[in-house]
């Protein structure tokens, strides 16, 4: 009885191993493809300029802690912005370029499933973006000392959450690129990545304003119910700005509590996973 089971397991294992190998192979190819392009280096040069300027300021002398905090905040925000730019740009270009060049068919003609091809590309984009982000943050930290009150724990939390946010951006941009042109999907993904919080906040505030009273009265809704309903509706939108806590670290405002950090990490990962599954489903059903 045990022999066939063992045999099945080894077949499963073989399948899993071959899937992982396919994913890694595609990821390696995509990684090399993007490394050959100029995007990463152009962004790195801009970041380097900022870091150099910061280093010069440090040599001249930083007299106030507020100046150091301001520079740290600007450096980390810039690192995040550049990493997000790379994430949107790489992820949104993966498939449309393959469609245009006609290089997808030879790839899929090999024993590689569509899901594995997509996963490989996402993994490569994500790793490249994270490598860039960590490099930028590291360069900032080298150029600028941490001020009293700024905590390593907070920095680790910021980097972790931003990384998850970048994963969400990668999957969002890739999913959109399966429906829309490259530039449009990259722009939408970037705008939503940075502006979702503002939009959510504006909607939340505007339903609480006086002029909404008439509307509520007309629909027989009480203010609290109206607010709760809006809150629930807004919960169904991905909001990567919830994962951005750069200012909490740079402003020396302590660190996030464990449960909150975990909750935010799970939130970001869940949305990234949802977009990934959506992209896999869409790509598996696409007529090429």
């Amino acid at each position: 009885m045990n022999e066939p089971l063992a045999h099945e397991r080894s077949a499963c294992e073989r399948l899993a191993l071959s899937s992982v190998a396919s994913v890694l192979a595609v990821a390696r190819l995509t990684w090399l493809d993007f490394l050959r392009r100029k995007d990463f280096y152009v962004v790195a040069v801009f970041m380097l300029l900022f870091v150099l300027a910061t280093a010069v300021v440090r040599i001249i002398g930083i007299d106030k802690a507020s100046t150091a905090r301001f520079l740290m905040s600007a450096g980390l925000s810039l690192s995040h912005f550049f990493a997000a730019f790379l994430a949107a740009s790489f992820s949104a270009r993966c498939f449309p370029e393959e469609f245009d060049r006609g290089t997808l068919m030879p790839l899929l003609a090999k024993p590689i499933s569509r899901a594995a091809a997509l996963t490989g590309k996402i993994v490569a984009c994500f790793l490249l973006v994270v490598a860039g982000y960590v490099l930028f943050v590291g360069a900032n930290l080298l150029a600028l000392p941490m001020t009293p009150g700024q905590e390593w724990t907070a920095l680790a939390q910021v980097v972790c959450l931003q990384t998850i946010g970048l994963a969400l951006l990668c999957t969002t941009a890739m999913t959109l690129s399966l429906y829309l042109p490259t530039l449009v999907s990259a722009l939408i993904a970037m705008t939503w990545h940075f502006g979702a919080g503002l939009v959510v906040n504006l909607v939340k505030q505007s339903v609480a304003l006086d002029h909404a009273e008439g509307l509520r009265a007309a629909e027989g809704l009480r203010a609290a119910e109206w607010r709760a309903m809006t809150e629930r509706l807004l919960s169904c939108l991905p909001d990567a700005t919830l994962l951005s806590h750069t200012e909490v670290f740079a402003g020396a405002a302590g660190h996030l509590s464990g449960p909150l950090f975990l909750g935010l990490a799970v939130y970001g990962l869940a949305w990234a996973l949802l977009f990934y599954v959506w992209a896999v489903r869409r790509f598996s059903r696409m007529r090429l």
Partner: protein
Amino acid sequence: MEENRTRNLAALIGLALFFAVAVVAVPPLRSATDRARSIYTAGQTEDVLRERNTSAFAQILGEARATAADLMFIKTNRYLHTGVAYVPKQGRDLAIDSVDESKHFSACVGAATQIRSAAEDFRGFLGNLERTVKPYKEASAEHTHTAKTELLPWYRLMTLSNPQYIRGYRTGGSTLASEEKWRQALGFMEEGIARNQGNPELFLLYQTLASFHLRGKTHKGYPWGDAWLDNALKAALKAYELGKIQRPPLGKTGAIAKDLAWSLDLEDDFCFSAHVILLLLREKGDVEGALQYGREMVELAPNYQPIRRTFEDLKKRAEGHADSKEDRAS
């Protein structure tokens, strides 16, 4: 076919479950995040923002700011001066009128412009070109201000994008009040108070509210008539009580009693609220109550002369009152 249908159904159920969990779990997560951020926002007091906006690095970065509200505040300042960019001054150099925040922008004749004057500009032709094509005015010239009402949407936007931007509520409320839009001003400030419960700078909003009601004494258009006295007193008392929690002993600059790094501006605003209480109680005829508060305030802020003077005056009145009582009794 059947397999596809089953997969679609499973995907739909999965999606429904995902959103069901999101609807339940995200609102508390969002409010917890907002609370965590409010700790940071609490540190971003008007003084901190002003110090940051006047730093050399902020000048180099132009109008780039981390928060939309702060950026809009700078833009509003620019629009107020018909596009002319003045070098922001810090803290007490700016001749801040603690009664009316909107005066923050005015009465600054002599303030340097961001585009240098011809006498100080080393750029020659390029400098002339910039002064010609960009809004520019000699620093010594009288400032021209656009109608304040034109700026009101900016205050609305500032507070919409960041409801904890006390500065926006204060300046917007004062601007509305100075335009005699009484009910809108009160509504705006009350909205700010409702959304900033727990904000360490909340006492500043009550202080602005007290100033708002104080206008009722002289402005005929004030819609609540004689109630200005009680309204102003109520607001000033609240400002005083809330400020006392945040104020370090003797209002020492830079010290932190609870959540705020105390500054000269905060001290001014706090002492103003305290002084207003004495004046209003005297106006009301409650000399005993005023004396009681006065004693406490003189101990709290022994160097603030207006409080000391009013307190001395109250003491004299009380003595005079007691003498006349004795005379009548005898």
